Every structure is written in structure tokens, then in C-alpha cells.
């Protein structure tokens, strides 16, 4: 099972979707084709924005750090933040904004509690570099890495309800010791 399949399962047919950090718009295009779900992507990178236009995906070139003021309250069914949370400078306001403009949020991120990451720090003594986290510490866009436990604590603090959680490693679901054995985690949350 992939991240896209997991997210698609959580999006209702015909839903209105906002994809924050949408890249080339591949997920939105998939959701449109499989679910007739329509919406908008938000992306800051010029080349990715143009790729979205090429993919016939609605895209808004905006900086997520500036918030979601362009969007009205409850104007989306689902707001997606796919593997972008860790690259945001201020998580709390963005997560609050996501559940202001959307009924539900889907958030995915690389789990920093994954055993390979732990081993690289604990035994090799250096910051983890992996398929999910391919950067060196000095050139990474990932400024706020976290683990499952950390994220769930933040959700509790913000008063969000975790509706579902899927943990994946190499495309396979993980149920045993997810914070240790899971490389990627995907949450569905609501206010």
C-alpha cells in the first residue's frame, strides 16, 4: 500500500480537497480521476507550479508560512499536508489553519522514531540519512522532524482528534511497534 492509496481511501467521492505543498499535482490529479474529487494545490516552487498547470491541476503559488488566509472557513472537505510538515517553520498555526479551512486534515511525515534513524544517531553518531530523509543536516529543508509520539502529543495539545493512522515501511503497513518500525506515517485528524 502506498501513501497515495492510503490518502485516496480517506477522501470521499466528489470531495473538495486542498493539497498543501502539492508538488507537480500528481495526488490531486489521481484524486480527480479516481474520486472526482476536485480542489486546489498550494505550491511555492516555480517549476512545480508550472508542472501542475501541465497536469491540468488548479494550483495557487503561495507560501504556507504565510498561512491560509486565501481560504474561507470550512471551504474544503479534506486538507492534505503530504510529507511537508517537517519542512514548515511553524507547525501549530498551520495545523490550526488546516482545520479551520477543512473539515478533516490528512498529514503525513517521515517518522524520526524509525529504528534506522535511531541507530544512525545512537551508534553511528550522526544525523540520519535515508530514503525518506535523503539530506545532510546542513542542507536539509526539514527543520522540524518528529516522531509519531511527538505528533500525537501535539494533536492532543491542539485538541485535534486522530481519526485514523497508517504506518508504512517500504510500502507495507506496520502494526507492531509503529514508532520503531514505521518509516512513514499518515494521519487523518479532525478538530
Amino acid at each position: 500500500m502506498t501513501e497515495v492509496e492510503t490518502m485516496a481511501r480517506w477522501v470521499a467521492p466528489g470531495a473538495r480537497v486542498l493539497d498543501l505543498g502539492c508538488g507537480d499535482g500528481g495526488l490531486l490529479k489521481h484524486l480527480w480521476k479516481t474520486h472526482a474529487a476536485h480542489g486546489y494545490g498550494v505550491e511555492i516552487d516555480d517549476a512545480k507550479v508550472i508542472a501542475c498547470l501541465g497536469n491540468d491541476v488548479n494550483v495557487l503559488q503561495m507560501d504556507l508560512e504565510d498561512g491560509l488566509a486565501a481560504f474561507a472557513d470550512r471551504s474544503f472537505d479534506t486538507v492534505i499536508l503530504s510529507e511537508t510538515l517537517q519542512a514548515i517553520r511553524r507547525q501549530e498555526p498551520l495545523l490550526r489553519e488546516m482545520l479551520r479551512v477543512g473539515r478533516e486534515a490528512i498529514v503525513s511525515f517521515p517518522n524520526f522514531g524509525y529504528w534506522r534513524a535511531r541507530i544512525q544517531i545512537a551508534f553511528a553518531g550522526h544525523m540520519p540519512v535515508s530514503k525518506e530523509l535523503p539530506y545532510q543536516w546542513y542542507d536539509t529543508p526539514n527543520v522540524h522532524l518528529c516522531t509519531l509520539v511527538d505528533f500525537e502529543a501535539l494533536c492532543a495539545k491542539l485538541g485535534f482528534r486522530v481519526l485514523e493512522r497508517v504506518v508504512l515501511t517500504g510500502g507495507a503497513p506496520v502494526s507492531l511497534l509503529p514508532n520503531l518500525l514505521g518509516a512513514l506515517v499518515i494521519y487523518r485528524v479532525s478538530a
Partner: protein
Amino acid sequence: MIVEAKKARFSEPLRLKSGAVLPEFEIAYETYGTLNAARSNAVLVCHALNASHHVAGSYAGEPKNLGWWDNMVGPGKPLDTERFFVVGNNYIGSCFGSTGPTSVNPATGRPWGADFPVVTVEDWVAAQARLADRLGIERFAAVMGGSLGAMQALQWSLSYPGRVRNAIVIAATPRLSAQNIAFNEVARQAIMTDPEFHGGHYHDKGVLPRRGLRIARMIGHITYLSGDAMMEKFGRALRRAAPGFDFDVDFEVESYLRHQGDKFAEYFDANTYLRITKALDYYDPAAEFGGDLAKAFARAQADFLVISFTSDWRFSSQRSREIVRALLDNRRVVSYLEIDAPQGHDAFLLDDARYHGALRAYFANISL
């Protein structure tokens, strides 16, 4: 691409927003490419203050007289005339061929001059719709423009919601700010206080208010460029070996502005300048909805592409974001690009690879 300017004459009167009536009028236009059998590939291009219907290509025997948006429109260009049938037009009240203050008033047999009514963006669009009827275009694949041209694209989506599939709105604003209006007023004052203006009846006196037009253009030019672009282009470079300690041209930028002003005063009409800046000042589709732009766009049916440039301080990105917000509130299909370009308002005329790449991608997805 060799192109040809044409004219369409309309003898049915046009009632203007001001209440005045234009008894008859002509629109100068050009077309590029071929209208397909389904008549589904027409794109209307709208111009800004000082441009015209000559959008692309050149006239036979005048290879240097290239259209003002030739980098955008033509065979293989972002707006590809091998796929689309592109219509360039000169709005009414302008001075490049369509009926305006320099045209002959049928009632007097003399140029309209100061008697030509004040026209609005809404009036331009109404006149353009007559041209579309004449050309057999029921619905445009896109209406596109930059700056004042973008206002026309916006207004098309409001005046004729069913006749526009895509509105491409570049370097736009939904309404002028007080600062914008202030710049326009200084330009108008420069013209109207020129001793050769004669209340707009300068043709009768056989003179032209060139000084006023020059200053108006100089002010305009300052607002079309960013401070950085101006510094980059001219710096503090001197035109002469050392400062003259007089009031002749010292700096490059002074020389540039004087040159632009001189050029403009030779080809542009003063009464036209007054009216176009008024059309800009008056444009505010939200006004009849208590200032609520989202309510104004409730009737729009088009898909939208909105593009702004970060260094544009004349019509800043914030103004474009207001348009986007209003469209989102109405759940319109919209994409928005904020291009980090240093040139200021004039960036919409340049050929930035991201800007052109975005339009190329967008047009490629317009089905015919």
C-alpha cells in the same frame, strides 16, 4: 508572421455607462491563425494604456513594426496561433484606429476632441462583444490581458459569463488604490494645465499639448518599473563627463524619461490619455456589491488564471490575491502564479521563462 490591420464598423448606437450614447463606432482589430469549424479556438487579447490592436507579427514592408506582445503570440509561441484564432483589438476611446477623441464626430464633421464621452472598461467590453458577434465568435476559449487589459478580461467574465471559457488575468487589480488614482491625477493635471491644451480643443487651434503628455508619460514610466529595475538599468550614471551644476540632463535616468516622454507625445493623444486614466480610476466591479468582490464574481462562470509579479508596486501581488480570494469564495476553477521577477509592472510584457512556460502549459490544456 505578416499581419494586416482591419476595421469593423458598427452603426447601431452604443449606450455607455455614463449615460452618453455613441451613435456609431469602429473597432480596429487584427486576427492571427484560423477560426476552427467549431468556432471554439478564439482568444481575445486586450491591451493596456498605450498599446493597440497590433498584438503580434508585422505589417508587409514594415518588418520592424512588431506587435506589442509578439513574444507571447504567434506560431509556436505560448499563445500559439497554429492552434488558436487570436483577435487583437483597439478599445474605443483609444487613438490607434478605433473610434475615439481623434475620430470625426458625425454630428459636426470635425474631430470629437474634448466632446468625446468618457468611456469605461465595461463600455470597452460591450464594444468588443459586438466585434465578437461580427466575427462569428459565440464563446471565447480565452480572454487575456495584462494591466488594464487584465481588467477587460475580468470584466468579460462578469459582463458575458457564458461567452468566456478562460479569463487570463495578468498584473491586474480589481480596483485602483488611492495611490494609483493619485498618479493618474498628476498625469491628467500635467496635460490639462499645458497652455496648449485649450480645454481639450487643441485640434481646433492646430496645436498639441506635448509638454503635458511628456510629463504624464514620465510619471507613468516611473510607476511601471521597480526601484531595483531602475537602479539596475540606470544607476547614478551620468550623461556627461561631470555634473553640470545646471538643469540640463545629468543622469541617465533623466535622459531616458525625457526620451520616453518625447516619443510618447508624438504618437499619443491627450484627450485619449485623460479618458483611459479615468476608465482605470472608475473600474471597480465590487462597487455595486458594497465593496464585496466575492459577491461581484458570483456571476462569473469562466476558469481563471491569475498571474502577478512580486516587484510590481503599481498593481501589487496583494491586489491579485484579492481577486483569487474572491474566486475561491465562489468555488471557481482558478490557478494563481506569483512570479518573482524584478522588473516591476512591465514584467508582464517580458519573456520570463517561468511566465511563458506557465502560459504555454495552461493553453495546452484548453480543449478545443
